[in-house]
């Protein structure tokens, strides 16, 4: 079949595909690291993980490290097992609620604004410095002020998360929307495409990989800000628990929260990794 007109194409069978599917190769700091490609690799990965955790356990026990310095992994595990449902779960829900609300508002406004603003280069010039300001200023800094105005409810935290994730999404999405391929626009236009069709069928798909990157970075920034805001000004949530347990020197509980936060972060990465693989893998 491939030699009908003398063309040789490389084979893209499933064994080679693992290396081909780069997905979101431009995820800056979070370089593409797929999971094991076969069971042997998986086994080694699991063994190393066991070794690291087991090693920590041994070091803590052999050197008799006090629990307030670093609790043994087994103690953290036990704390997680025992306290997750009664103690941590309600606070996890609070953090997730703040994160989702703030992120939803921030990300949708970010994408919308990026789509509109990139259509008007001059408007973009006006808005960009402020967006940069929002991106570079840690939004946690605003939380004391917001708390002062809005009280200890979830509003100040939701606003902080939206302000942290929104500009991040916007700046990446704008990069995507700005990436206009003139030949592809001409192609669509030569078939008589309307401005709306050009947006939905050319500009948006072309921008999608960058939008997904923005959504991921925005989600991670949102998580950081949500937890930070809870540390600064909240009586609930995982960030608040960090303060609470460390002030009471309940280090096993403290580290349990850290583990939960780490899992949340990884989950965000994995979710967007798969979204990227599904929707943006055309960009090798």
């Amino acid at each position, binding site marked *: 079949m491939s030699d009908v007109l003398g*063309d*040789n194409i490389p084979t893209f069978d499933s064994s080679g595909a693992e290396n081909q599917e780069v997905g979101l190769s431009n995820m800056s700091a979070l370089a593409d690291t797929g999971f094991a490609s076969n069971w042997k690799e998986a086994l080694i990965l699991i063994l190393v993980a066991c070794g690291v955790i087991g090693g920590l356990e041994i070091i803590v026990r052999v050197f008799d490290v006090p629990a307030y310095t670093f609790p043994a992994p087994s103690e953290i595990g036990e704390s997680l097992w025992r306290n997750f449902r009664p103690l941590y779960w309600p606070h996890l829900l609070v953090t997730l609620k703040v994160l989702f609300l703030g992120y939803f508002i921030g990300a949708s406004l970010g994408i919308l604004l990026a789509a509109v603003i990139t259509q008007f280069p001059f408007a973009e010039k006006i808005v960009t410095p402020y967006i940069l300001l929002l991106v570079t200023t840690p939004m946690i800094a605003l939380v004391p002020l917001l708390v002062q105005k809005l009280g200890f409810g979830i509003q100040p935290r939701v606003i902080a998360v939206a302000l942290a994730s929104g500009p991040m999404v916007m700046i990446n999405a704008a990069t995507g929307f700005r990436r206009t391929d003139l030949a592809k626009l001409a192609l669509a236009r*030569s078939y*008589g495409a309307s401005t709306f069709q050009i947006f939905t*069928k050319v500009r948006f798909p072309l921008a999608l990989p960058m939008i997904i990157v923005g959504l991921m970075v925005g989600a991670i920034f949102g998580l950081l800000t949500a937890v930070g805001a809870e540390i600064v000004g909240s009586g609930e949530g995982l960030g608040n628990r960090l303060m609470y347990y460390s002030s009471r020197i309940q280090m096993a509980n403290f580290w349990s929260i850290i583990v939960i936060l780490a899992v949340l972060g990884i989950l965000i990465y994995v979710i967007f990794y798969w979204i990227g693989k599904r929707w*943006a893998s055309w960009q090798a």
Partner: protein
Amino acid sequence: MVQTERAMNATGGVERSGVVQVEHATKYYKTNTGSVHALEDITLDIRKGEFIAIVGPSGCGKSTLLWAMSGLHDLTSGKVVIDGSTVTGPRPEIGMIFQEANLLPWRNLQKNIEFPFEIKKIDSKPYQPRIQDLLAEVGLTGFETKFPRELSGGMQQRASIVRCLAFDPDIILMDEPFGALDAFTRDEMNLLIQKLWMETGKTIVFVTHNVSEAILLADRVVVLTPRPGRVAHIFDIDLPRPRTIEETYSPPFIEKIFEIKDTIIQGSYRPEHVAEVTRKVAGVSARKAGE
């Protein structure tokens, strides 16, 4: 295989055309450094079903002229008339083939071919047998679900030809379509285009900087002068068809290359100059042969 098209046209019962008239086309571009005079008073009549090649030095405005025909760019003065009506924007009876294949990388081959139908909001279902025939014709059957990055450059360009022919345009405008391909693939594509053209009888305007390619394909070769582009000369290519790659090395073919290249270099057709150059080169070859 593309006979289905004739059948379709026959059953459609509508006499389709494909006459392109360029009348006094003049174009100035505005750039940051001032105004560029791209085209000057170009007049050109292209008959229905004719294969026209436009050649010229780079920057002579040959692509500008093509884009003006497509309705994507407007002219400063003059007009393009297609089948009796003046072009003011993109037209449904025109299909374009671009430099490089210009496939959408997020769509598989089938979806790329259906792209024009989506834009035009036409149901592509009745055209599926036609698309299948065309895919078979260009040797891409079985590649429908492949993505552009999985195809070679030649395969991508063949897919873009299918995309263009699928909705059955009367006129095909090709803007240096094979410039990015290697020489062998280019030959192969040229033969494919000739075959498709002979089967379908479309009007084709083909912009290229490759003189040999132009002669191989065209009924007439239009040579433009350096900027601003004017018509330097129009050459009739009355070589029999189908033309083969081997024929590009035949004396009548080489003669045409001489004439056209000389016209591009001199900016006008001067038979006596061509004859002189030919004599010189022939003399060199004769000496070489004598040694």
